[in-house]
């Protein structure tokens, strides 16, 4: 069985409706979707070797399937620059989570000013649908997204990018590189594949999907499971 299926099955056996970020990212990665380099650490020793493996600056996040809105609960420490800061952040998060955490997620800091969103939803009539649009806070403010039914071909995926009002965000603007549209298209196609091949996956939210240079990277991800 694939790694993605193992993770989903494990969560279902525990009676869970959501995957933790760590699990969600591994499912995505298993389907060829680029995600942040990251490790789940449980103590300071693991923290130190993770930090060494990735290199500063880092992001530290409390990781638990019960926690969806990490930022609001101050469980996210961004731009952690050295070991001292990392240990502070680690202890602070562990205290706040009060034993509910499956650990702290230590991940690379993706630098990029363009935040996108990509996702998967299931429509009662049309089945699995892939979404693409502007991410971060703009997802809610501008509601600038497009949809296609899975399976997508490359033409569908490219059309989704042309369809959003903010499509110029993918061009070469203000000294930033043009987005790698083929990589984005492949990512959307792969999201559709998850919808078709993993019936237990109910919804996926990759937000933000940050353009690191030209390449899209899933920086945060939520996966909910069907009953």
């Amino acid at each position, binding site marked *: 069985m694939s790694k993605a299926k193992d993770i989903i099955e494990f969560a279902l056996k525990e009676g869970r409706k959501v995957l933790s970020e760590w699990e969600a990212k591994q499912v995505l990665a298993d389907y060829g979707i680029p995600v942040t380099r990251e490790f789940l650490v449980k103590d300071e020793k693991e923290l130190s070797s993770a930090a060494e493996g990735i290199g500063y600056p880092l992001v530290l996040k409390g990781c638990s399937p019960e926690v969806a809105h990490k930022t609001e609960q101050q469980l996210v420490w961004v731009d952690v620059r050295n070991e001292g800061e990392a240990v502070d952040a680690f202890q602070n998060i562990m205290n706040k989570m009060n034993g509910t955490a499956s650990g702290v997620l230590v991940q690379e800091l993706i630098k990029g000013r363009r935040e996108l969103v990509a996702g998967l*939803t299931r429509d009662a*009539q*049309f089945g699995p649908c892939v979404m693409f649009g502007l991410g971060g806070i703009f997802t809610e403010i501008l509601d600038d*997204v*497009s949809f*296609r039914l899975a399976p997508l071909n490359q033409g569908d995926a490219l059309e989704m990018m042309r369809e959003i009002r903010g499509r110029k965000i993918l061009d070469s603007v203000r000294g930033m590189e043009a987005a790698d549209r083929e990589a984005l298209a492949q990512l959307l196609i792969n999201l559709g594949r998850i919808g078709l091949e993993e019936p237990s996956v109910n919804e996926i939210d990759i937000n933000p999907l940050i353009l690191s240079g030209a390449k899209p990277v899933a920086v945060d991800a939520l996966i909910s499971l069907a009953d």
Partner: protein
Amino acid sequence: MDRIFYPKSIVVVGVSESPKNLGRNIVENLLRFGFQGELNLVGKDGSELHGKPIYRSIDDVPGVPDLAVLLIPAKAILSCLEDCGRKGIQRAVVESGGFSEYSDDAENLERDIRQVAAKYGLRFVGPNCISVMNLDNGLVLPFVLMEPEITRKGGVSLISQSGGVLVNSVNLFSCENLGFSKFVSIGNKLNLDENDFLEYLDGDENTRIIGMYLESISNGRRLVSLAQKIRKPVVVLKSNRFPASNEVAKFHTAALAQDDRVCNAAFKQAGIHRVDTLADMITYTKVFRMPLPQGPNLGVIGRSGGQNVISADAVTSRGFQMLPFSDATLESARKRSRAGVIRMTNPLDLGDIFDLDFYVDVLESVLRDSRMHGVLLQHGYGGPEERETTYKMIESVKELSFRYQKPVILTIITSREDWFELRNASDFPVFPEAGPALEALAAALRHYRRIEGMARDN
């Protein structure tokens, strides 16, 4: 499906002598439209109508009709379908209302009806529908009286989730002198749904354009996979887009809400042309009756300079473009200009020329230009003096459009008196203005490209 649209014999259930009886209207429609098949009548009070006996029960009807048409109270439908099934009737149209569109308690009744149908392999249209019209054989089954004078045979067929919209469409088609082949209202689509009819109409040789009015979608995945294979234009007016109108729709045909954006995406992937109004449905239908544009280059010719400017905006904003006219076209325009004040541009303003034959000459010269994919020709007149010459021009435009296999969007604004007369003069479409017609022409260009893509892939 042929037994629904081309039955050799039918039985109408729910007929009486009473002038208030709606079943009578079904019989009257069949007679008016000259349905040649065998017609049997059933009603609980017996007697006769138009010299035909009204049998008291389906069991008394001789032979096994291909199709049963039921217009009886909802609570009697179940046993009536049972009777049909036992007799061996395999197709039915259930026009009666009073099901889930009316009350939540009807769910059990609907389930029982489904079971009876499954037991006998009986397929049915409805319930809660105005049902079927087929102009090919005069099978006109609505329970409201229809006028044969206002209908004309043609290549458009329509599937409608609302009987009212279907009847309205008959009138709108008449106003535009548009012919149709088959109209079907599908009501609560308990058994046969829009996909079944779409599949049938795709294979129907008398249908060239398929229109649909939907408030809910029965099986989105099947709709998409069916439509993806269809080469005929499929134009869909899908309403019930917002929560507010959703309440009305639930009451109306038991429609369920769906995310409208997903629906848009699905239609795009399926190659379905979505419209928002019945007016647009008519406009798209008119445009699809012409040859498809094979590219974006349009010539614009008009009698009014102002209208030409409006046209130019309409052309550009829909993704079309106006290439400069060829020397041959300009030369033919120059020769006939009286005051010599025509500016030799695209759009071409023919304001100082009154001879409509000349419009046709310029039109032909543009259509002959292999770089040009279509023409927007704008005309306007008021009095009866130009009536006959205008009718003659329309016929010439039609002939040229089909000879060169390029669309000509002909817009004519005329007097109140001539408005409909003009549309009756020819079956070539006439539009009031360029904008909506070009919107439809853009859809026609997408359609052309999709069909070309399908041909390449095969």
